[in-house]
């Protein structure tokens, strides 16, 4: 079974280009940095408040790291196929039907990512005129992560579409993703 904690997940290797591995590693590191930073800022918030000299801007830094972490993690999870799924019905399929559904799924994600980029960008530009008090940071500092994550999701979805089209979507790790009874059925 794949090491899910690895910096670069080796599962679904056939759907990945080596050239993008560094990007996955960077996103994982950034995910760790975000959660570490907002743990630190909430800690400092409690300490400064207890000392009677609260740093009000800390809460804004906290929410920024929190929101960035969500969207960075969302992009990383797209490359690692780590998102929450209602079902993994496609993993039980093979051949052309499997390819057709996998491609359709990624086209849906592709369209969503394009909408995130376009409208997220427009929102980010609009937010240049809105500020958070008391630091007067433009709201864009927060919302710019939406189109940025959209670009990464688009990139990883195209990567999977191209590689899936060339090599097929099926891989040996599909068994790991399945409930044991399906693995046993396949083994028979």
């Amino acid at each position, binding site marked *: 079974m794949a090491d*899910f*904690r690895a*910096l670069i997940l080796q599962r679904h290797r056939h759907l990945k280009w080596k050239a993008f591995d560094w990007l996955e590693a960077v996103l*994982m*590191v*950034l*995910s*760790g940095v*975000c*959660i*570490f930073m*907002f*743990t630190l800022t*909430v*800690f400092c*918030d*409690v300490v400064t408040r207890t000392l009677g000299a609260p740093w009000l801007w800390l*809460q804004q830094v*906290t*929410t920024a790291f*929190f*929101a960035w*972490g*969500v*969207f*960075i*993690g*969302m992009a*990383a*999870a*797209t490359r690692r196929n*780590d*998102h*929450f*799924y*209602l*079902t*993994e*019905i*496609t993993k039980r399929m093979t051949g052309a039907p499997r390819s057709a*559904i*996998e491609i*359709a*799924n990624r086209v*849906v*994600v592709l369209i*969503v990512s394009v*909408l*995130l980029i376009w*409208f*997220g960008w*427009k*929102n980010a530009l609009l937010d240049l005129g809105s500020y958070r008090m008391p630091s007067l940071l433009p709201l864009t500092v*927060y*919302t710019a992560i*939406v189109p940025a994550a959209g670009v990464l999701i688009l990139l990883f979805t195209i990567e999977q579409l191209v590689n899936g089209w060339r090599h097929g979507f099926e891989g040996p790790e599909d068994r790991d993703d399945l*409930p*044991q*009874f399906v693995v*046993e059925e396949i083994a028979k």
Partner: protein
Amino acid sequence: MSAGGILILMGILFLGFGYMGVPVSFALMAGVFVATAFTPVSLQSMVGQLFHGIDSETLLAVPFFLLVGELMASSDVVHRMIRLSQTLVGHLRGGLAQVVTLFSMFFAGISGSSVADVAVLTRTVAPEMDKEGYDRAFTAALIACASTMANLIPPSIMAVVYGATGNVSIGGLFLAGVVPGVLIGIGLMVYSYFWGPVGVMKPRAKFIDVAVAARGAALPLIIPVIIMGGILTGWFTPTEAGMIAAVYILIVLIPVLRPTHVKELPRDFMYAGLLYSLPLAAVAGASAFGWMVAYLRGPDIVADYITSFAGTDGRIIMLLLVALFVIVGDFIDAVPAIIIFMPIILKLTEVGHINPLHMGVVIITTLVFGLITPPYGLSLLVASKYVGVGFGKALVRSFPLYIVFFLTIGFCVFFPDVVLWLPKMLLPESVGCFKSPTGVGYICPP
């Protein structure tokens, strides 16, 4: 297209895409974006809504409780709590089954994640149960059922999400979750005692063994005290309590109990960073979805439908909502389900004159049941996978345990005074009480 038609289209698209294999967060977004095209609402504002859905300081508690669970599970300090559980209940009939349940109650007080509980138990107790001849299907079923307590006994991630989106006191939800959590624990222990496998009977541990085990487990067991103590004394918000628990593990627990794990901490943070983004990505999609449901007056449509059966009788409304959420929980993960249906829940809480905290506990207990029901019974899926038994077999063995959950949900619906007793005593404002003008005691709603 009518509002009802758009709502149905949005729901069908979400479930259709979801069951085709599109990730939950993207399936939610796709459903909302298509529905938006049939309304005067702009796509730009819906994309903005995705961000605003997670731009909440209260939701920060989610990563902290996940981090706490992740640090505890990966640093493997939990075996001390397992040893304590063994000395306390290991001598009973079905000893290791009792250990699973008691340990889950302890672990639930530390982590808000059922999956972390499953991961720990399948790695530690499950192999022992295998050696003692326990049926693997029973082992998987019991571990999955016991793990659900992590979402009831505080801290609970579901309670954080419910409180943040429904504007209900999170501290109050934590306290109110204790009763259903403990009831499920007792129910599982009673079932294991009378109807579960016998296992290997062991002698009762001596007092000195219990004392030694309790001393060994004292450091991890301080975590629930930190979390609930901090919240109840008003020192910390639930978010800050989660952070303090994480810092305590980092500064005290790991260096003292497992110093070799320190070099693994960057990896723990990276993985926890990825882990927390998954439910919150679903929260982002679900908040836009929930916003659209509210915009299209979905709560009024559903409330009219439900009140046509139930009138304004709070108990019948609750039972109908329980039926709805048993079905919803079978198909959708609890976190997006809470957010999508929150406008409807709030409307019905108002119509039935139900205490919001009481409604919250009933809904969370019902959704917790969804973790062990097919096809989206996440805890049961993970437990059966790691125990190495077919999902179907584990499912059959979990059917009798469902009775425990039905009884607990029924108890929560019909005995609100018992469920709300703890929050009423310790956090009276959370159940709608306010300080008496005389300055002595509280005045509470009937």
